[in-house]
């Protein structure tokens, strides 16, 4: 028996209630949506007051249907934010894959500009496409994309201009990563040994390398065999003349 049928028996205003059944349902759904996201994001009706987002969207429960934040996400801490422990080989897993599209659909932004920790943000996730990531407040990007094996594109990774950030296993096992654009400076060892980066992406990396010529500092840039084969002698010379060993 529908709500309308039930209310016909008990209410003098049954026609009005029946006509408004859908509106009542939608209002109830919206109320639950608001309550859930106000709670999760510490919302006050106009904005989220939550800054600690450690592991908030991690796990297999999140997917592109239910990831509908109400407020902009502005973390100060984002460790393991989207970590998923995705079971590779499982074809039925339906996690968050295209983050820019999800955010656009929800009508919110994900602003990392105040974030100080990025450890394992997309570790083991099935993410495929990430937009702009401002990491300038963070000192390291250790394991940020560790084993994100479906990740093919990072629109822009914004680094500090002083080249002091560390990259421990940042792109380890990112076996699909082809497209990435860097701004800022890479000043410490960095490895893309598992990633089939395009030449354009490789040159973005080369351009971002700190110039250590005239010093006795040496660092290592590791690229995959596939990507190294795309480089010209000029590219290799630029890398080595900047004081970087190409491995």
């Amino acid at each position: 028996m529908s709500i309308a049928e039930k209310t016909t028996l008990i209410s003098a205003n049954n026609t009005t209630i029946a006509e408004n059944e859908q509106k009542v349902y939608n209002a109830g759904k919206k109320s639950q949506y608001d309550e859930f996201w106000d709670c999760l994001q510490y919302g006050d009706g106009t904005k989220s007051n939550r800054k600690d987002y450690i592991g908030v969207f991690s796990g297999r429960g999140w997917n592109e249907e239910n990831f509908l934040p109400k407020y902009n996400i502005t973390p100060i801490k984002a460790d393991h934010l989207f970590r998923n422990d995705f079971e590779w080989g499982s074809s039925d897993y339906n996690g968050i894959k295209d983050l820019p599209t999800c955010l656009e659909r929800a009508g919110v932004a994900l602003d990392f500009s105040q974030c100080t920790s990025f450890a394992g943000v997309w570790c083991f996730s099935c993410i495929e496409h990430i937009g702009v990531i401002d990491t300038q407040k963070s000192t390291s990007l250790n394991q940020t994309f560790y084993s994100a094996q479906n990740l093919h594109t990072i629109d822009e990774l914004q680094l500090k201009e002083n080249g002091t950030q560390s990259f421990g296993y940042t792109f380890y096992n990112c076996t699909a990563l082809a497209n990435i654009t860097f701004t800022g400076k890479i000043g410490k060892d960095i490895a893309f040994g598992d990633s089939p980066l395009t030449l354009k992406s490789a040159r973005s990396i080369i351009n971002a390398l700190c110039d250590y010529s005239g010093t006795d500092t040496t660092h290592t840039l590791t690229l995959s065999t596939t990507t190294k084969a795309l480089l010209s002698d000029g590219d290799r010379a630029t890398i080595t003349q900047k004081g970087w060993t190409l491995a």
Partner: protein
Amino acid sequence: MITENINLIKLTASDGYVLTNDEAYSKEVYLGCNDKAENWREITEAEYNEILKQQEEEMERENENIH
């Protein structure tokens, strides 16, 4: 027109070996202007695979602790 002499020092591992400076690993390496061949040594592929395995196991232990 610009003419340049580009000097690249390339180290290539022998068959069955991998080059390492104890931080990075590769079959071939182009030395940076501040790097030296003495900083790199050859290890066998078996040793390299063992190192990789140990690193992955360490990562798994670290990641399990997070849960």
